């Protein structure tokens, strides 16, 4: 009986082998959807809506608000915009599958505003090879800024700029004081550390951690025992909150500077009791600010994405919308991906909610500049004279 199964299996595999040879020419053509022939431009996004990283998924609503806002004004390049957004739970394996779905099944024109360093890292090369534009991903990871990635357009300041902003500020105001950095031990935390070192020269204590860590007592005790006066935190939101709370509970109050990704969420003043006085890097206006660009965004959120607060995560989506719009704005039929990319590469000092953005054929730089906020009485204030311009395209 077994022999028979084997024989059948052998026969089947030979058949399969022949088939696979016969079919070998399939699936090698360029990605579909490269040219817009209908009256709608479909954009694709992946963002975590579930799992521990779900809060960043709010960027979907910022993008929806932008699309609603543009469509209400008659669309762009004579077409309406539409978004298909999938939940990848912040898992690169899911992003890989979902981007295939967006490109081949849904035939989107471009991937826009997808969130997360590891998730985007999983797909950016494949998308670039397939000549599908990947615009304004939610990450400042240096890998996306490498030259030669023709179809990849990051819009955030690169993470090293974030670190340089902190370092420059410390050098100016706290020169000579012992400083420490707690950083996430990955492609997010390490470039920030590198930026800090670049502008500050040296760091007295460096403490790496992984996101799953919840008890930072030992780290805080170590900093306190070493007499550290300035602590910079290259952390995600939850870890940043845990560390600052630990500091308060151990009666330790150094100068604290958070990275922008750790302080954008709405509930931060509830989550960290000792936030007052804490600094944070930023490339967006503080939530609730009277900046006209923020007001435009907040008003659109209220109108086109009701029920979703205009927070920093939503603003990331809005930023992605702004960049995409700039690439489409002056295009005439036929609208193609290559025309879109060429148009993006002409943008110089393009003003967005995240400041000025520069792209050229040689360099896709994204936002140039960052500054600092400081927590005061339950809201963020911009620290005067704290701006840092990391642009190399001057």
């Amino acid at each position: 009986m077994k022999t028979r199964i084997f024989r059948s299996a052998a026969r089947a595999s030979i058949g399969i082998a022949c088939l696979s040879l016969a079919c070998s020419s399939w699936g090698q053509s360029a990605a579909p959807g490269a040219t817009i022939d209908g009256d709608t431009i479909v954009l694709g996004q992946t963002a975590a809506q579930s799992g521990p990283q779900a809060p960043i998924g709010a960027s979907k609503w910022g993008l929806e608000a932008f699309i609603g806002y543009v469509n209400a004004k008659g669309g762009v390049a004579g077409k309406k915009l539409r978004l298909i957004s999938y939940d990848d739970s912040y898992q690169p394996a899911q992003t890989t599958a979902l981007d295939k779905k967006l490109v081949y099944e849904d035939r989107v024109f471009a991937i826009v505003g997808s969130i997360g360093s590891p998730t985007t890292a999983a797909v950016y090369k494949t998308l670039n090879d397939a000549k599908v534009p990947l615009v304004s991903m939610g990450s400042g990871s240096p890998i996306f800024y490498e030259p030669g990635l023709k179809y990849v357009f990051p819009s955030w300041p690169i993470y090293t700029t974030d670190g340089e902003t902190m370092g420059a500020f410390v050098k100016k105001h706290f020169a000579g004081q012992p400083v420490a950095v707690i950083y996430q031990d990955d492609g997010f935390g390490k470039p920030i550390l590198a930026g800090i070192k670049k502008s500050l020269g040296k760091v007295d204590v460096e403490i790496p951690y992984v996101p799953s860590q919840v008890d930072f007592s030992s780290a805080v005790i170590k900093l306190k025992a070493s007499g550290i006066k300035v602590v910079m935190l290259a952390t995600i939101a939850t870890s940043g909150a845990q560390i600052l709370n630990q500091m308060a509970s151990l009666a330790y109050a150094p100068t604290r500077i958070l990275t922008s990704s750790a302080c954008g969420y709405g509930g931060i003043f509830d989550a960290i009791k000792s936030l007052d006085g804490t600094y944070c890097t930023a490339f967006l206006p503080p939530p609730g600010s009277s900046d006209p660009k923020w007001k435009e965004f907040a008003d659109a959120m209220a109108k086109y994405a009701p029920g979703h607060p205009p927070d920093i995560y939503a603003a990331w989506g809005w930023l992605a919308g702004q960049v995409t719009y700039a690439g489409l704005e002056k295009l005439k039929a036929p609208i193609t991906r290559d025309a879109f990319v060429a148009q993006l590469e002409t943008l110089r000092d393009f003003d967005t909610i995240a400041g000025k953005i520069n792209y050229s054929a040689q360099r896709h730089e994204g936002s140039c500049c960052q500054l600092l906020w400081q927590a005061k009485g339950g809201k963020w204030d911009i620290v005067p004279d704290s701006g840092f311009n990391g642009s190399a395209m001057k």
Partner: protein
Amino acid sequence: MPQRAALVLVALCALLPLALQTIGERQVYWLFVVSEFFVFAIVAVSLDLLMGRTGQISLGHAGFVALGAYSAAILNQRFGLDLLAGMVVGGVLAGVASLVLGFPATRLRGHYLGIVTLGFGIAVDQIALKWDSLTGGDQGIHLHRPMLLGLDVGTPVRMYYVALIALVVTALLVYCLGQTRIGRAFAAIKDSEIAAAAMGVPVARTKVLAFICSAFLAGAAGAIYAFLAGFVAPENFGIESSLLFFAMVVVGGMGSIGGAIGGAVVVDAVKNAAATVSGLSLAILGGMIVLVVLFFPGGLKALLQRRRRAAAPVSGLDGVARQDA
């Protein structure tokens, strides 16, 4: 006859790419999804060999998949090794890891293996993230175009057949193993460790052997996955994936290849259908596991077959729990 049904299914799977040609380029996505499913099914079958056949729990099978995927990716990136070499090396490394873990853990009480593998899954993640000079850290590794024995298998269709053949071969191997001395020893240990020992089965060593076989297959599946996705990253293989594999085996009905594959279909479907709501797929899968164990101990397999067997006789360590019935 289940064998005939299996052959028909394999034939249908082999013809699927032909049918998919009618939808043009959209097939790229569907071929990927089904290929990915084949790889998951291999892992489910391998885990079933351990859980369903030998009665040992692993909560870190994604760790073995990760080990295989990383081995294949690193060898491919640095030395240009092909898919087959990646599968062999990945499988062997996973097997070695399982030997180190399994030797102390299986000698002891059954649940130790569950806890130790849980830790293993977490550790693989952490080490892959930390050792970035080798693994690329959180930025992962992008692989070159997959080659298999000199043949370019880089198209979606060819990768589909690679995954399908791997699944068929895995299923055949596990099926045949079940008909041999070693396979019977696995089942004997699951049913009653004491009686198995009295029949001359070296219980601890055989448990480790089952663990190694299972880890080897999972590692080889990981290598295929690496080439299929073209990318490997630590977050791909977290505890969530291990729980998914676990759910596939339980829902499908432990101790059957068809059950494991069917379980993979159901779990994959639930995962995709419920993905957009936070916690929903976790809750559904958890609920399914509880319901299956309480009301359908045979899982999908038994539901489909409707073959009823009388209650098993009191045996082995379970007898302790049964005494108070």
